[in-house]
């Protein structure tokens, strides 16, 4: 069955640094991969989508890469701010449905 792995340990970084989160998947070849942000007690919010034929996608301070050979996506937040602190989920499509990883909690401290 398809499996999505995100680092379950929280990532703690200092304000201004670049945060890099990893998403690995197995037993599947998704047409695209998405990243969501989830704050405590709230529903996830869509951030970025990258297709299998795209290597990199950017949106303001966010950058996503997608390596279909390694079956891995990297999510970068440059010039991180305390307001970026949240859990970040990757999701991949599976026959018109999305399946989500467990998410990685990011904590940006001043």
């Amino acid at each position: 069955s398809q499996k999505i792995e995100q680092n379950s340990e929280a990532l703690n970084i200092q304000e201004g640094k670049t945060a890099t989160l990893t998403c690995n998947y197995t037993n599947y070849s998704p047409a695209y991969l998405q990243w969501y942000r989830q704050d405590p007690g709230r529903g996830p919010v869509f951030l970025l989508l990258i297709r299998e034929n795209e290597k990199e996608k950017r949106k303001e301070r966010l950058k996503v890469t997608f390596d279909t050979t390694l079956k891995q996506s990297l999510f970068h937040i440059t010039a991180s701010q305390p307001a970026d602190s949240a859990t970040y989920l990757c999701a991949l499509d599976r026959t018109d449905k999305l399946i989500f990883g467990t998410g990685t909690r990011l904590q940006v401290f001043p």
Partner: protein
Amino acid sequence: EADIYQTPRYLVIGTGKKITLECSQTMGHDKMYWYQQDPGMELHLIHYSYGVNSTEKGDLSSESTVSRIRTEHFPLTLESARPSHTSQYLCASSEWRVSGNTIYFGEGSWLTVV
């Protein structure tokens, strides 16, 4: 900002009671979903719908049921609540585009069964 609404946000109810979690979206999306998420855990798809009169079970088995009589409305019902049903339930909707199937989530309904 997504136009998808869930009520109630918080509900504490006794074992054996029947409950319905409401979900409405004003975006005209055909596809709607219910996910279940325990604190700090991953999202699990429990129900989805491709349109009116279409309902399917998701990956995680659930004793809840859903209905889709109107495009904008996708309620979830538990006939007899149990403590094991305590969780957060997230409703979502999406519209297929060539660029991908982006999902918009509601704020969630926190259910506690005592």
